[in-house]
């Protein structure tokens, strides 16, 4: 009996592919060749940087969006839409603000055509189970974030789901609240108080993933696919301070930061114009470089330790690492980050020199920055509308992402003083000092020529 049940996985994905079409009818591949299985009785965590496509994958499993290729099966049946038996908890809670807690929890039952009495009964049970008893008549806006997400869980659990999909459900909550909620959920799961057979958690918090999951899958981006898998054999509840736990966390950090193509070797790989600049700022990067340079790290830092020291979220940290890496200011190897000679020079320099060093590294390593600067240099008035660059980026990226990348390169370029931006006009231009300098040079040259 048990064997027949275990032969079909709850969720079974083979070679899943998802592309989005950019406005210029270019295709951007978000997911490529994703294989994934969720077996009965396990919690699987999907870890990845923001924008790596893990949320897209979750939505494919939820039946909310269709894949462009490959197979998606739920209990052996090909999925064509949201399946009864799969429930989802949202990062933003996605509660209906005009419905009370009770009504929110009842909504799915109502849609399923379940009678009023049974609905009320089941909803009350779910609300009680998740620890919200007494708040049945409250509206979501009366509740704190943690309690709102409890409603989110109650709403999903009341459907008695086979599979529970969690889309970063704790990331909008503060540390303490999310820990409590996590523990409560694990207790329900471990004590079999809910009929759910499998849980999939999407997260960008490494410790959260390791503390909850039986398996952690590391997701890589561009295009997104499963890069590595780590089994967490520790019994729950897990002691996050234990050596075994820390070791797994360390291992995941290493996997998350290991660069696929370069493998952590200093030589910068060739980036394209459409390279998705990490979502971070020069100020933060400078701050992190300083932290690494100072005691206790003195130039080389263990990643989980650095995360603890700087109190930054994993996701922010990965963007920072990525930024420093592509700029050639830091390198990552074997779960450690250390300064390159360029990074060391940056830390030791004063503000003005830092800007120069940053500018140099930016133009050398980031094709988009170099491209913008070249266009502005060549134009007679040294100005160019942002739309021009936006359109170029849209060949590679979705609209939103193109905008974000352009915004990022503007922030970086402004810090480096290699170009400036007029928000009201939406125009990129060379900084005034640069233009004046160029004009002075021009005049000098002309004066020289006429003198000859």
């Amino acid at each position: 009996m048990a064997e027949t049940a275990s032969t079909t996985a709850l969720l079974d994905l083979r070679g899943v592919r998802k592309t989005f079409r950019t406005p210029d009818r270019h295709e951007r591949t978000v997911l490529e060749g994703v294989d994934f299985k969720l077996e009965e009785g396990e919690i699987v965590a999907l870890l990845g940087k923001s924008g790596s496509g893990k949320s897209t994958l979750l939505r494919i499993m939820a039946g909310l969006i269709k894949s462009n290729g490959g197979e998606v099966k739920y209990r052996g049946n090909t999925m064509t839409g949201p399946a009864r038996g799969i429930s989802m908890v949202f990062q933003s809670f996605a509660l209906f603000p005009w419905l009370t807690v009770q009504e929110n929890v009842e909504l799915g039952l109502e849609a399923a055509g379940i009678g009023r009495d049974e609905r009320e009964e089941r909803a009350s049970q779910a609300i009680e189970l998740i620890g919200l008893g007494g708040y049945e008549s409250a509206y979501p806006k009366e509740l704190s974030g943690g309690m709102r997400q409890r409603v989110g869980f109650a709403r999903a659990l009341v459907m008695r789901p086979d599979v529970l999909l969690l889309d970063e459900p704790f990331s909008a909550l503060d540390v303490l609240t999310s820990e409590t909620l996590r523990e409560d959920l694990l207790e329900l799961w471990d004590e079999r108080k809910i009929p759910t057979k499998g849980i999939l958690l999407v997260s960008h918090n490494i410790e959260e993933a390791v503390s909850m999951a039986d398996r952690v899958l590391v997701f890589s981006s561009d295009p997104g696919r499963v890069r590595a898998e780590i089994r967490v054999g520790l019994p729950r509840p897990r002691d996050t301070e234990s050596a075994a736990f820390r070791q797994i966390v360390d291992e995941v950090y290493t996997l998350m930061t290991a660069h696929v193509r370069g493998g952590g070797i200093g030589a910068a790989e060739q980036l394209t114009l459409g390279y998705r600049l990490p979502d971070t700022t020069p100020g933060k990067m400078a701050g992190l470089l300083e932290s690494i340079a100072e005691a206790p790290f003195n130039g080389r830092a263990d990643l989980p330790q650095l995360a603890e020291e700087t109190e930054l979220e994993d996701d922010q940290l990965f963007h920072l690492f990525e930024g420093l890496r592509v700029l050639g200011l830091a390198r990552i190897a074997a779960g450690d980050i250390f300064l390159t000679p360029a990074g060391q020079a940056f830390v030791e320099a004063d503000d003005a020199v830092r800007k120069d060093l940053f500018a140099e590294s930016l133009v050398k390593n980031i094709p988009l920055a170099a491209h913008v600067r070249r266009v502005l240099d060549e134009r007679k008035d040294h100005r160019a509308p942002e739309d021009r660059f936006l359109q170029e980026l849209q060949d590679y990226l979705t609209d939103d992402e193109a905008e974000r990348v352009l915004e990022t390169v503007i922030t970086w370029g402004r810090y480096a003083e290699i170009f400036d931006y007029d928000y009201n006009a939406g125009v990129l231009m060379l900084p005034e000092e640069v233009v004046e300098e160029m004009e002075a040079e021009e005049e000098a040259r002309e004066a020289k020529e006429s003198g000859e």
Partner: protein
Amino acid sequence: MRWSLPTVAVAPELKPNFWDLAIIPVIFALLALLAYGGAQMTTPYDVGEKLALSLDPTNLPYYLLRSALRMAAALLASLVFTLTYATLAAKVPALEKVLIPILDILQSIPILGFLSITVTGFIALFPGNLLGVECAAIFAIFTSQAWNMAFSLYSSLKTVPNDLIEASEMFHLSPWQRFWRLELPWGMPSLVWNMMMSVSGGWFFVVASEAISVSGQNISLPGVGSYIALAIAEENLGAIGWAILAVLGGIIAYDQLIFRPLVAWTDKFKVDSLPGEQIPESWLLTLMQRGRLFRYLARLPAALWDRFTGLLRQKDEATLFHRAPGPVITLPAWAARAWDAVLMAAALAALVQVALFIHAEVSFAEIGQVFLYGLATTLRVVVLITLASLVWVPVGVWIGQRPLVAQNVQWIAQFLAAFPANLMFPVAVVLIVRFDLNVDVWTSPLMILGTQWYILFNVIAGASAIPQDMKDAAGNLGLTGWMRWKRFIGPAIFPSYVTGAVTASGGSWNASIVSELVSWGDTKLEAVGLGSYIARATSDGDFPRIALGIAVMCLFVMAFNRFLWRRLYMLAADRLRLD
């Protein structure tokens, strides 16, 4: 209580659109068809005899009731229209392409122009029955209410948060359930606000639409509007006073019995109330929610409502998966292209038809003349909005910064905006004649009499929403005088000012039809302008000229909106938001 800022009834995402141009002729063709039909059906209207009207104030409550019922019927019709029209436009892109430009144009058409064109048709629809005239009046009020409501729901439907859509899909809500459980509730606060604005503007048209004179016939429906018309004809100033009281009573009744409870109720549909924002209250709603009897009575509708929203649920218990149709229904590519071609052809045909209809009667020289009239009216609107702004912006800012004053004054300003200014016209006529003033200049203020209050109460709302820390910072930096206005107050209130000015200018165009041609007894004053041109054509029953006048005014209003207001609005929305 403090009102939240209204949502403007223009869809900001609407860019000047090719289809706008193509659709204009279609609308005019339809109007011309109606007009042509009307001209064909000029069988003498016969309600037996003239409807008895009396200036005895004891009749006023009855008249008020009749007027208020007309308003309610129009509001109901607007609601039905909004639910279907806006939903279709938001869900079917192929229809959206047509419906939204149509709405945009309908919004710019002077409402009083509708009346003259439609009344003959309605009368013919119910021969020998008062219902025809009633319908015409209700239709006129409807046209003053429906468009901004439809726009508001449409933009709400387009902005339903994606996570809520996903949640409703995960929980297998059918499209029908999704509409009642998600989409409509989401749009509710802005819809109710727009309904309130609509009724506020509607009183003006109640007064204007009950006493209709078409093709030399005078038809007076029992109501406050007819009472006023009779008072004007008989030069009875006392009766006007009574009528003003009656209308005030009507406005208060609508506010207290319908909108206050509605606004308080819709507060729960808001996703998040801002800290410090006062929660709207209504004694009636409180009464209904707290009273045991009401709660008991409410159970029956609640059960019915459950049945209603559950009507079309997904019946797929047997099948494991089911994909409900998405929130948007698209056509295949070839069909979309064919549809575009059909629209183009219709637009061209309509353009030719309109040109023929108007030109058969009106010479090119006169068309040019009408455009000049349009410029005269434009001048009036621009000058008056400027003057009103110069007066009311400083006053509004002064009031807005004093919360205690603001609470009371804003309430009064909203009443003044709802108050039909056409009641005051007779006074102006008397004054102009007494002091022998220039008619072209001194009738002009009438068109802004009722609409200036929109500027005032929006500025008050904007000024009272300025965060305290910004005020403190401005004081701390020593910003005073002109500098304070230029760098701080001006930008801070700009978005709400634009909202008020858009409404005021739209209302003024409409008001020009009644304010450029005013009378008191036998005295008739006529100012040169597009409004008086339309008014005269209307009383003569001259359909080609009515169509021409309306078309020209529509063009002016649309140009105004496109080139001025929408740009300012975008600027405000994009650059000067306080959040």
